[in-house]
Protein backbone atom coordinates (compact mmCIF):
# COMPACT_ATOMS: atom_id res chain seq x y z
CA UNK A 1 0.00 0.00 0.00
CA UNK A 2 2.75 2.40 1.04
CA UNK A 3 4.69 1.51 -2.11
CA UNK A 4 1.69 2.44 -4.25
CA UNK A 5 1.32 5.76 -2.43
CA UNK A 6 4.98 6.57 -3.04
CA UNK A 7 4.69 5.46 -6.69
CA UNK A 8 1.70 7.75 -7.21
CA UNK A 9 3.58 10.58 -5.50
CA UNK A 10 6.60 10.20 -7.80
CA UNK A 11 4.43 9.84 -10.93
CA UNK A 12 2.29 12.87 -10.10
CA UNK A 13 5.24 15.04 -9.16
CA UNK A 14 6.53 15.02 -12.75
CA UNK A 15 3.50 16.67 -14.45
CA UNK A 16 3.01 18.91 -11.43
CA UNK A 17 6.59 20.16 -11.52
CA UNK A 18 7.04 20.39 -15.31
CA UNK A 19 3.59 21.26 -16.65
CA UNK A 20 1.48 22.96 -13.98
CA UNK A 21 4.01 24.78 -11.79
CA UNK A 22 5.43 26.94 -14.62
CA UNK A 23 2.00 28.66 -14.69
CA UNK A 24 2.30 29.46 -10.98
CA UNK A 25 5.90 30.61 -11.06
CA UNK A 26 6.78 34.00 -9.62
CA UNK A 27 9.42 35.91 -11.63
CA UNK A 28 10.06 32.64 -13.48
CA UNK A 29 10.92 30.88 -10.23
CA UNK A 30 8.96 27.83 -9.15
CA UNK A 31 9.35 25.80 -5.96
CA UNK A 32 11.06 22.41 -6.08
CA UNK A 33 8.24 20.10 -5.09
CA UNK A 34 10.57 17.11 -5.27
CA UNK A 35 12.61 18.53 -2.41
CA UNK A 36 9.47 19.32 -0.43
CA UNK A 37 8.05 15.82 -0.96
CA UNK A 38 11.32 14.12 0.03
CA UNK A 39 11.44 16.24 3.21
CA UNK A 40 7.87 15.32 4.15
CA UNK A 41 8.49 11.60 3.60
CA UNK A 42 11.66 11.87 5.71
CA UNK A 43 9.87 13.69 8.54
CA UNK A 44 6.91 11.32 8.72
CA UNK A 45 8.44 7.99 7.65
CA UNK A 46 12.07 8.17 8.75
CA UNK A 47 15.51 8.31 7.17
CA UNK A 48 15.40 5.13 5.10
CA UNK A 49 12.11 5.84 3.37
CA UNK A 50 13.10 9.49 3.02
CA UNK A 51 16.31 8.42 1.31
CA UNK A 52 14.67 5.90 -1.04
CA UNK A 53 11.77 8.13 -2.03
CA UNK A 54 14.13 11.11 -2.35
CA UNK A 55 16.38 9.12 -4.69
CA UNK A 56 13.40 7.99 -6.77
CA UNK A 57 12.11 11.57 -7.01
CA UNK A 58 15.57 12.87 -7.90
CA UNK A 59 16.05 10.25 -10.61
CA UNK A 60 12.61 10.60 -12.22
CA UNK A 61 12.58 14.42 -12.12
CA UNK A 62 16.08 14.49 -13.60
CA UNK A 63 14.77 12.63 -16.65
CA UNK A 64 12.83 15.83 -17.36
CA UNK A 65 15.61 18.29 -16.70
CA UNK A 66 18.81 19.30 -18.45
CA UNK A 67 20.63 19.11 -15.12
CA UNK A 68 23.19 16.62 -13.83
CA UNK A 69 21.83 13.36 -12.44
CA UNK A 70 24.24 13.08 -9.50
CA UNK A 71 23.29 16.52 -8.14
CA UNK A 72 19.62 15.60 -8.31
CA UNK A 73 20.20 12.25 -6.58
CA UNK A 74 22.38 13.72 -3.85
CA UNK A 75 20.09 16.67 -3.20
CA UNK A 76 16.78 14.83 -3.00
CA UNK A 77 18.18 11.72 -1.28
CA UNK A 78 20.12 13.89 1.17
CA UNK A 79 17.04 15.93 2.04
CA UNK A 80 15.10 12.73 2.74
CA UNK A 81 17.79 11.45 5.13
CA UNK A 82 18.29 14.82 6.80
CA UNK A 83 14.55 15.39 7.27
CA UNK A 84 14.24 11.92 8.79
CA UNK A 85 17.10 12.63 11.17
CA UNK A 86 15.74 16.05 12.20
CA UNK A 87 12.22 14.68 12.48
CA UNK A 88 13.57 12.28 15.08
CA UNK A 89 15.76 14.81 16.93
CA UNK A 90 13.53 17.90 17.03
CA UNK A 91 10.70 17.56 19.51
CA UNK A 92 8.65 20.68 18.71
CA UNK A 93 8.18 20.85 14.99
CA UNK A 94 6.14 23.83 13.81
CA UNK A 95 5.40 25.07 10.28
CA UNK A 96 8.00 27.80 10.80
CA UNK A 97 10.81 25.46 11.90
CA UNK A 98 10.04 23.08 9.02
CA UNK A 99 9.87 25.98 6.53
CA UNK A 100 13.10 27.55 7.74
CA UNK A 101 14.79 24.15 7.75
CA UNK A 102 13.88 23.46 4.15
CA UNK A 103 14.81 27.02 3.15
CA UNK A 104 18.32 26.41 4.50
CA UNK A 105 18.63 22.98 2.91
CA UNK A 106 17.37 24.31 -0.43
CA UNK A 107 19.81 27.22 -0.20
CA UNK A 108 22.77 24.94 0.53
CA UNK A 109 21.85 22.47 -2.23
CA UNK A 110 21.24 25.34 -4.67
CA UNK A 111 24.64 26.89 -3.90
CA UNK A 112 26.24 23.47 -4.28
CA UNK A 113 24.54 23.05 -7.68
CA UNK A 114 25.56 26.57 -8.75
CA UNK A 115 29.16 25.86 -7.79
CA UNK A 116 29.09 22.76 -9.98
CA UNK A 117 27.43 24.58 -12.88
CA UNK A 118 29.67 24.41 -15.96
CA UNK A 119 31.29 27.53 -17.48
CA UNK A 120 30.24 29.97 -14.74
CA UNK A 121 32.59 32.68 -13.52
CA UNK A 122 32.26 34.13 -10.01
CA UNK A 123 29.99 37.04 -11.00
CA UNK A 124 27.68 34.72 -12.92
CA UNK A 125 27.58 32.32 -10.00
CA UNK A 126 26.58 35.15 -7.64
CA UNK A 127 23.94 36.27 -10.12
CA UNK A 128 22.56 32.73 -10.12
CA UNK A 129 22.53 32.55 -6.33
CA UNK A 130 20.83 35.94 -5.99
CA UNK A 131 18.32 35.51 -8.79
CA UNK A 132 17.51 31.80 -8.76
CA UNK A 133 18.85 29.91 -5.74
CA UNK A 134 17.80 32.32 -2.98
CA UNK A 135 14.28 33.10 -4.30
CA UNK A 136 13.70 29.39 -4.90
CA UNK A 137 14.86 28.55 -1.38
CA UNK A 138 12.40 31.12 0.03
CA UNK A 139 9.66 29.69 -2.18
CA UNK A 140 10.47 26.13 -1.05
CA UNK A 141 10.41 27.23 2.60
CA UNK A 142 7.05 28.97 2.26
CA UNK A 143 5.46 26.03 0.40
CA UNK A 144 6.79 23.56 2.99
CA UNK A 145 5.59 25.68 5.92
CA UNK A 146 2.17 26.06 4.28
CA UNK A 147 1.83 22.34 3.58
CA UNK A 148 2.98 21.42 7.09
CA UNK A 149 0.45 23.86 8.54
CA UNK A 150 -2.29 22.29 6.40
CA UNK A 151 -1.30 18.78 7.51
CA UNK A 152 -1.15 19.87 11.15
CA UNK A 153 -4.67 21.32 10.90
CA UNK A 154 -6.04 18.05 9.54
CA UNK A 155 -3.96 15.46 11.42
CA UNK A 156 -2.18 15.10 14.73
CA UNK A 157 1.37 15.50 13.36
CA UNK A 158 3.08 14.59 16.64
CA UNK A 159 1.26 11.25 16.56
CA UNK A 160 2.03 10.76 12.88
CA UNK A 161 5.72 11.25 13.61
CA UNK A 162 5.90 9.00 16.63
CA UNK A 163 3.63 6.18 15.50
Amino acid at each position, binding site marked *: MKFLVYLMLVLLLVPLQTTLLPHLSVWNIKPDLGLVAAAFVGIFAGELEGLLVGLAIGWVLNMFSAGELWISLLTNGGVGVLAG*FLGRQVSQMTPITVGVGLLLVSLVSGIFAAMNFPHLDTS*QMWWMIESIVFPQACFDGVVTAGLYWLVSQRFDVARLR*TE
Partner: protein
Amino acid sequence: MAHSRTPYGARRLALACFALLVVALFLLPNQIQGLLQYLDGPVGHVVRVPLEAIASIDAGVADRWAQYVALQGVREENQQLRKEIEWLRGQHNQLREAAAATERLTGLLSFKEQALPAMVAAQVIGRDATNRYRAIILNKGESDGIKPDMGVVTPAGVVGRVVKTTGASSVVLLVTDPNNAIAGLIQRTRDEGVVEGTQQGLARLKYIPLLSTLRDGDRVVTSGLVGGFPRGLVIGTITRIDKEEGALFQSAELNPEVDVSRVEEVLVIQTSYGQSTKAGAGADLLGKSAP
Protein backbone atom coordinates in the same frame (compact mmCIF):
# COMPACT_ATOMS: atom_id res chain seq x y z
CA MET B 1 12.98 14.39 21.48
CA ALA B 2 10.46 12.69 19.22
CA HIS B 3 10.50 8.91 19.08
CA SER B 4 10.03 7.66 15.57
CA ARG B 5 8.87 4.13 14.84
CA THR B 6 11.84 3.76 12.46
CA PRO B 7 14.04 1.10 14.05
CA TYR B 8 17.62 1.94 14.84
CA GLY B 9 18.86 -0.59 12.23
CA ALA B 10 16.85 1.12 9.49
CA ARG B 11 18.38 4.47 10.41
CA ARG B 12 21.86 3.07 10.26
CA LEU B 13 21.02 1.40 6.95
CA ALA B 14 19.74 4.72 5.54
CA LEU B 15 22.92 6.53 6.52
CA ALA B 16 25.07 3.68 5.20
CA CYS B 17 23.16 3.66 1.88
CA PHE B 18 23.53 7.40 1.54
CA ALA B 19 27.24 7.28 2.29
CA LEU B 20 27.63 4.43 -0.21
CA LEU B 21 25.73 6.43 -2.83
CA VAL B 22 27.97 9.48 -2.32
CA VAL B 23 31.09 7.34 -2.66
CA ALA B 24 29.71 5.51 -5.72
CA LEU B 25 28.70 8.77 -7.41
CA PHE B 26 32.20 10.17 -6.92
CA LEU B 27 34.10 7.01 -7.82
CA LEU B 28 31.91 5.55 -10.58
CA PRO B 29 29.88 8.47 -11.97
CA ASN B 30 29.66 7.17 -15.54
CA GLN B 31 28.67 3.63 -14.52
CA ILE B 32 25.89 4.84 -12.19
CA GLN B 33 24.64 7.27 -14.83
CA GLY B 34 24.78 4.54 -17.50
CA LEU B 35 22.82 2.11 -15.33
CA LEU B 36 20.09 4.65 -14.57
CA GLN B 37 19.93 5.78 -18.20
CA TYR B 38 19.38 2.14 -19.18
CA LEU B 39 16.30 2.17 -16.93
CA ASP B 40 15.16 5.58 -18.21
CA GLY B 41 13.43 4.01 -21.25
CA PRO B 42 10.76 1.87 -19.53
CA VAL B 43 10.32 4.34 -16.65
CA GLY B 44 9.97 7.17 -19.16
CA HIS B 45 7.08 5.33 -20.85
CA VAL B 46 5.29 4.96 -17.50
CA VAL B 47 5.82 8.59 -16.47
CA ARG B 48 4.68 9.74 -19.90
CA VAL B 49 1.05 8.67 -19.18
CA PRO B 50 0.22 11.15 -16.37
CA LEU B 51 2.50 13.76 -17.95
CA GLU B 52 0.68 13.69 -21.30
CA ALA B 53 -2.73 13.52 -19.60
CA ILE B 54 -2.06 16.64 -17.53
CA ALA B 55 -0.33 18.38 -20.45
CA SER B 56 -3.40 17.82 -22.66
CA ILE B 57 -5.73 19.15 -19.92
CA ASP B 58 -3.42 22.13 -19.53
CA ALA B 59 -3.41 22.74 -23.29
CA GLY B 60 -7.22 22.42 -23.39
CA VAL B 61 -7.67 25.00 -20.63
CA ALA B 62 -5.18 27.33 -22.33
CA ASP B 63 -7.06 26.93 -25.64
CA ARG B 64 -10.43 27.71 -24.05
CA TRP B 65 -8.92 30.72 -22.33
CA ALA B 66 -7.39 31.98 -25.56
CA GLN B 67 -10.54 31.34 -27.63
CA TYR B 68 -13.24 32.68 -25.35
CA VAL B 69 -11.85 34.71 -22.50
CA ALA B 70 -8.72 36.53 -23.63
CA LEU B 71 -10.26 38.20 -26.67
CA GLN B 72 -9.62 41.80 -25.73
CA GLY B 73 -7.99 43.78 -28.51
CA VAL B 74 -8.51 41.04 -31.09
CA ARG B 75 -10.22 43.40 -33.57
CA GLU B 76 -7.30 45.82 -33.59
CA GLU B 77 -4.86 42.94 -33.80
CA ASN B 78 -6.82 41.49 -36.72
CA GLN B 79 -6.62 44.77 -38.64
CA GLN B 80 -2.92 45.00 -37.94
CA LEU B 81 -2.39 41.44 -39.12
CA ARG B 82 -4.33 42.09 -42.34
CA LYS B 83 -2.02 44.96 -43.12
CA GLU B 84 0.96 42.74 -42.35
CA ILE B 85 -0.38 40.02 -44.67
CA GLU B 86 -0.63 42.53 -47.52
CA TRP B 87 2.96 43.58 -46.94
CA LEU B 88 4.14 39.97 -46.67
CA ARG B 89 2.37 39.07 -49.93
CA GLY B 90 4.44 41.71 -51.66
CA GLN B 91 7.58 40.37 -50.02
CA HIS B 92 6.62 36.82 -50.97
CA ASN B 93 6.32 37.74 -54.65
CA GLN B 94 9.70 39.40 -54.58
CA LEU B 95 11.28 36.40 -52.87
CA ARG B 96 9.74 33.99 -55.37
CA GLU B 97 11.35 35.99 -58.14
CA ALA B 98 14.65 35.94 -56.30
CA ALA B 99 14.34 32.17 -55.67
CA ALA B 100 13.69 31.52 -59.34
CA ALA B 101 16.71 33.59 -60.28
CA THR B 102 18.85 31.78 -57.70
CA GLU B 103 17.70 28.42 -59.05
CA ARG B 104 18.70 29.41 -62.58
CA LEU B 105 22.08 30.67 -61.43
CA THR B 106 22.66 27.59 -59.27
CA GLY B 107 22.00 25.42 -62.29
CA LEU B 108 24.42 27.48 -64.32
CA LEU B 109 27.11 27.09 -61.67
CA SER B 110 26.36 23.34 -61.27
CA PHE B 111 26.05 23.54 -57.49
CA LYS B 112 25.04 20.36 -55.73
CA GLU B 113 21.36 20.52 -54.82
CA GLN B 114 20.82 20.71 -51.09
CA ALA B 115 18.34 18.22 -49.71
CA LEU B 116 15.77 19.27 -47.15
CA PRO B 117 16.53 17.84 -43.73
CA ALA B 118 14.33 15.05 -42.32
CA MET B 119 12.28 16.26 -39.37
CA VAL B 120 9.94 14.99 -36.69
CA ALA B 121 7.15 17.18 -35.37
CA ALA B 122 6.73 17.21 -31.58
CA GLN B 123 4.63 18.92 -28.97
CA VAL B 124 5.94 20.80 -25.93
CA ILE B 125 4.50 19.11 -22.83
CA GLY B 126 6.47 20.80 -20.08
CA ARG B 127 9.37 22.93 -18.90
CA ASP B 128 12.58 21.97 -17.10
CA ALA B 129 11.91 20.48 -13.67
CA THR B 130 14.46 22.85 -12.09
CA ASN B 131 14.89 26.63 -12.27
CA ARG B 132 18.55 26.39 -13.19
CA TYR B 133 18.15 25.48 -16.86
CA ARG B 134 16.02 26.92 -19.65
CA ALA B 135 14.71 23.76 -21.25
CA ILE B 136 11.49 22.34 -22.65
CA ILE B 137 10.17 18.78 -22.67
CA LEU B 138 8.89 17.20 -25.90
CA ASN B 139 6.41 14.35 -26.27
CA LYS B 140 8.72 12.43 -28.63
CA GLY B 141 11.80 10.45 -27.63
CA GLU B 142 14.18 7.68 -28.64
CA SER B 143 11.37 5.51 -30.00
CA ASP B 144 10.62 8.28 -32.52
CA GLY B 145 14.23 8.47 -33.63
CA ILE B 146 15.22 11.49 -31.54
CA LYS B 147 18.78 11.53 -30.21
CA PRO B 148 20.88 13.97 -28.19
CA ASP B 149 22.47 16.87 -30.13
CA MET B 150 19.69 17.06 -32.72
CA GLY B 151 18.59 20.60 -33.55
CA VAL B 152 15.08 21.82 -32.74
CA VAL B 153 13.36 24.56 -34.75
CA THR B 154 10.02 26.15 -35.57
CA PRO B 155 9.16 27.75 -38.92
CA ALA B 156 10.28 31.05 -37.34
CA GLY B 157 13.78 29.88 -36.40
CA VAL B 158 16.01 28.00 -33.99
CA VAL B 159 14.60 26.83 -30.64
CA GLY B 160 17.46 24.81 -29.16
CA ARG B 161 19.17 21.45 -29.05
CA VAL B 162 18.17 18.03 -27.66
CA VAL B 163 20.30 17.20 -24.62
CA LYS B 164 18.55 14.22 -23.10
CA THR B 165 16.12 11.56 -24.28
CA THR B 166 14.02 8.81 -22.76
CA GLY B 167 11.92 6.29 -24.66
CA ALA B 168 8.97 8.64 -24.97
CA SER B 169 10.21 12.14 -24.27
CA SER B 170 13.18 14.41 -24.75
CA VAL B 171 14.64 17.51 -23.12
CA VAL B 172 15.62 20.46 -25.32
CA LEU B 173 18.07 23.05 -24.01
CA LEU B 174 16.82 26.39 -25.34
CA VAL B 175 18.90 28.81 -27.38
CA THR B 176 18.59 31.28 -24.49
CA ASP B 177 20.30 28.97 -21.96
CA PRO B 178 23.90 29.97 -21.14
CA ASN B 179 24.99 26.31 -21.53
CA ASN B 180 23.92 26.19 -25.15
CA ALA B 181 26.33 26.97 -28.00
CA ILE B 182 25.32 27.04 -31.66
CA ALA B 183 27.55 27.94 -34.60
CA GLY B 184 26.10 31.06 -36.20
CA LEU B 185 26.93 33.65 -38.83
CA ILE B 186 25.80 37.17 -39.59
CA GLN B 187 23.62 36.91 -42.69
CA ARG B 188 24.76 40.19 -44.27
CA THR B 189 28.49 40.17 -43.55
CA ARG B 190 28.98 36.34 -43.44
CA ASP B 191 31.12 36.66 -40.29
CA GLU B 192 30.98 33.57 -38.12
CA GLY B 193 30.70 33.24 -34.36
CA VAL B 194 29.19 31.16 -31.58
CA VAL B 195 25.70 31.89 -30.26
CA GLU B 196 25.27 31.34 -26.52
CA GLY B 197 22.36 32.08 -24.22
CA THR B 198 22.57 34.78 -21.57
CA GLN B 199 21.36 34.80 -17.98
CA GLN B 200 18.80 37.46 -18.90
CA GLY B 201 17.06 35.06 -21.30
CA LEU B 202 18.49 36.48 -24.53
CA ALA B 203 21.34 35.24 -26.73
CA ARG B 204 24.80 36.52 -27.55
CA LEU B 205 26.95 36.05 -30.65
CA LYS B 206 30.56 35.73 -29.49
CA TYR B 207 33.96 35.60 -31.21
CA ILE B 208 33.04 37.96 -34.07
CA PRO B 209 36.17 39.22 -35.89
CA LEU B 210 37.16 42.77 -34.95
CA LEU B 211 37.03 43.92 -38.57
CA SER B 212 33.43 42.81 -39.03
CA THR B 213 31.08 45.61 -40.13
CA LEU B 214 28.07 44.27 -38.25
CA ARG B 215 25.32 46.67 -37.15
CA ASP B 216 22.09 46.68 -35.15
CA GLY B 217 19.31 44.87 -36.95
CA ASP B 218 21.58 42.37 -38.71
CA ARG B 219 20.16 38.86 -38.70
CA VAL B 220 22.14 35.92 -37.37
CA VAL B 221 21.57 32.49 -38.91
CA THR B 222 23.01 29.02 -38.31
CA SER B 223 26.29 28.43 -40.10
CA GLY B 224 25.72 24.69 -40.51
CA LEU B 225 29.36 23.94 -39.73
CA VAL B 226 28.90 22.18 -36.40
CA GLY B 227 26.01 20.48 -34.65
CA GLY B 228 22.56 19.41 -35.70
CA PHE B 229 21.50 22.49 -37.65
CA PRO B 230 21.60 23.03 -41.40
CA ARG B 231 22.83 26.36 -42.73
CA GLY B 232 20.57 29.41 -42.89
CA LEU B 233 18.05 28.94 -40.07
CA VAL B 234 17.32 32.22 -38.32
CA ILE B 235 18.57 32.47 -34.74
CA GLY B 236 17.92 36.14 -33.95
CA THR B 237 18.51 39.80 -34.67
CA ILE B 238 21.40 41.88 -33.33
CA THR B 239 20.23 44.50 -30.84
CA ARG B 240 23.52 45.66 -29.30
CA ILE B 241 27.18 45.42 -30.21
CA ASP B 242 29.92 45.17 -27.57
CA LYS B 243 33.42 46.08 -28.68
CA GLU B 244 35.88 46.32 -25.82
CA GLU B 245 39.22 48.07 -26.02
CA GLY B 246 42.05 45.58 -26.43
CA ALA B 247 39.74 42.60 -26.95
CA LEU B 248 40.52 40.08 -29.65
CA PHE B 249 36.90 39.71 -30.71
CA GLN B 250 33.67 41.64 -30.52
CA SER B 251 30.33 40.25 -29.42
CA ALA B 252 26.70 41.16 -30.01
CA GLU B 253 23.48 40.71 -28.09
CA LEU B 254 20.68 39.02 -30.01
CA ASN B 255 16.94 39.06 -29.70
CA PRO B 256 15.96 35.43 -30.44
CA GLU B 257 13.62 35.05 -33.41
CA VAL B 258 11.48 32.46 -31.62
CA ASP B 259 9.70 33.42 -28.40
CA VAL B 260 10.88 30.32 -26.56
CA SER B 261 8.65 31.00 -23.56
CA ARG B 262 5.53 30.45 -25.69
CA VAL B 263 6.57 27.76 -28.12
CA GLU B 264 4.06 24.87 -28.30
CA GLU B 265 5.03 22.78 -31.33
CA VAL B 266 8.49 22.22 -32.73
CA LEU B 267 10.34 20.27 -35.40
CA VAL B 268 13.33 18.11 -34.50
CA ILE B 269 15.95 17.93 -37.26
CA GLN B 270 17.02 14.31 -37.65
CA THR B 271 19.46 14.81 -40.49
CA SER B 272 21.17 17.98 -41.57
CA TYR B 273 21.77 19.18 -45.11
CA GLY B 274 23.95 16.81 -47.03
CA GLN B 275 23.03 13.82 -44.85
CA SER B 276 19.50 13.50 -46.18
CA THR B 277 19.38 11.53 -49.40
CA LYS B 278 15.95 12.46 -50.67
CA ALA B 279 14.31 15.83 -50.49
CA GLY B 280 10.93 14.13 -50.37
CA ALA B 281 11.82 12.28 -47.20
CA GLY B 282 12.13 15.53 -45.31
CA ALA B 283 9.33 17.71 -44.11
CA ASP B 284 8.88 21.20 -45.41
CA LEU B 285 9.42 23.61 -42.54
CA LEU B 286 6.38 25.65 -43.43
CA GLY B 287 4.17 22.88 -44.66
CA LYS B 288 4.58 20.45 -41.76
CA SER B 289 1.35 19.71 -39.99
CA ALA B 290 1.00 19.92 -36.22
CA PRO B 291 1.91 16.77 -34.26
